[in-house]
């Protein structure tokens, strides 16, 4: 039974992959990618990785595909869409070589995969033994915010700096209060299609539910599946919905976007600095107050992720001068 399901799921993933890679229309491509996200989230569930499935659903499918679909909608038919980079003489050569090389590589790699004797991770036992010291009960949150907090910190740094980068590509370098205020103001020449009243209404109704879901994911993270990233994605989705419903968020953008963006990383680093001040290594937290530290960091991190993802969305709209 399970085998048939897995087989079907795998084939479906492959078909949608093919569709998202080979389609000629941008819209089809990005929509296929959205479907791919959904399918893969189901695969994660099949592989008993609830947290990853949640993250995929929220971040991967929800936001990432939304970005791509948005892009496809805003400029559906750029010059040369979907065409291969062909040389003049042998049109078929590149795709053919690519196909053959890809197939050969797949066969070789897969053969190696199957032959290899896998070894189970050596961190299983120490992870369970040391989990109580971290102040959280959910092992994945423990890994993210205690055992490998350094990775998470650098990663939130990446998200923050990506937001900084896309803001830097907007008016006034995007990095002052005045410029975030102006983000994503549509020009007359590229105005959005009018928003149907129903959507606007639905968005306003949905938002509280989304916020509630986000907060639940956040606070559930310490004991159960969920966490800063999933929660941040949901909250960002709520903001985006509001924005699409043409709710005026400019004051929020001007006053709060940058501080929120930065806050998570700053507090994370400062919390990491407490250890050295007490003579411990970087990023170590005493079991007594570890939970408090993790909670503070997680809340601010969520805010930062929300702001970062929202900034990515806002910056998608070209500033005037660069349409």
């Amino acid at each position, binding site marked *: 039974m*399970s085998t048939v399901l*897995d087989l079907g799921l*795998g084939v479906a993933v492959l078909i949608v*992959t093919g569709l998202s*890679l*080979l389609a000629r229309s*941008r819209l089809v*491509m*990005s929509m296929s*990618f959205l479907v791919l*996200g959904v399918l*893969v989230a189901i*695969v994660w569930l099949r*592989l*008993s*990785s609830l*947290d*990853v499935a949640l*993250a*995929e659903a929220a*971040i*991967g499918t929800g*936001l990432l595909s939304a*970005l*791509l679909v948005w*892009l496809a909608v805003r*400029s559906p038919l*750029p010059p*040369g*869409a979907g*065409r291969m*980079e062909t040389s003049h003489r042998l049109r078929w050569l590149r795709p053919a070589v*690519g196909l053959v*090389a*890809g197939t050969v*590589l*797949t066969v070789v790699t*897969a053969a190696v*995969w199957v032959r290899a004797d*896998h070894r*189970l*991770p050596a*961190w*299983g036992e120490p*992870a369970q033994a040391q989990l109580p010291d971290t102040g959280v009960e959910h092992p*994945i949150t*423990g*890994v993210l915010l205690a055992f490998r907090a350094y990775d*998470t910190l650098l990663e939130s740094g*990446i998200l923050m700096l*990506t937001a900084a*980068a*896309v803001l830097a590509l907007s008016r006034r370098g995007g990095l002052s209060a005045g410029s975030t205020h102006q983000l994503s103001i549509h020009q007359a020449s590229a105005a959005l299609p009018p928003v149907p009243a129903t959507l606007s209404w639905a968005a306003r109704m949905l938002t509280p539910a989304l916020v509630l879901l986000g907060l639940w994911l956040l606070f559930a993270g310490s004991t159960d599946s969920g966490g800063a*990233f999933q929660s941040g994605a949901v909250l960002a989705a709520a903001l985006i919905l509001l924005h699409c419903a043409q709710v005026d968020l400019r004051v929020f953008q001007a006053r709060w976007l940058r501080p929120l963006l930065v806050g998570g990383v700053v507090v994370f680093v400062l919390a990491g600095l407490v250890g050295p001040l007490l003579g411990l290594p970087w990023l170590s937290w005493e079991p007594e107050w570890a939970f408090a530290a993790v909670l503070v960091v997680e809340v601010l991190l969520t805010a930062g*992720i929300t702001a970062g*993802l929202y900034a*990515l969305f806002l910056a*998608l709209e*070209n500033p005037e001068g*660069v349409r």
Partner: protein
Amino acid sequence: MVSVDTISWYLLVSTVMIIFGTVRLLLVRDLLARLIALDVTGIGVLLALVALAARSESSDPVLQALVITGLVIAVAFTGLGAVLIRRIEGLREDGGGGDRS
């Protein structure tokens, strides 16, 4: 505990995604198509990691955490890529853009 066959099957699927995503990325000209190909490759890699995580009794938390990290990074680069594509195509629509650098 997921059966070994299932894991191997998903590893195979992930391999196909990785390799054909890469090939497409290197061959196609359309910028959005390239970005999507890159994302497909990324999902393929993460799928492999999750499949590996599923070998343990209860799915391995460390590998899962790594995958979540990977996902966030994927969103980050896709976001930057998408904004860059928008800007570049905005320039093109303007008719080649200005001469300032």
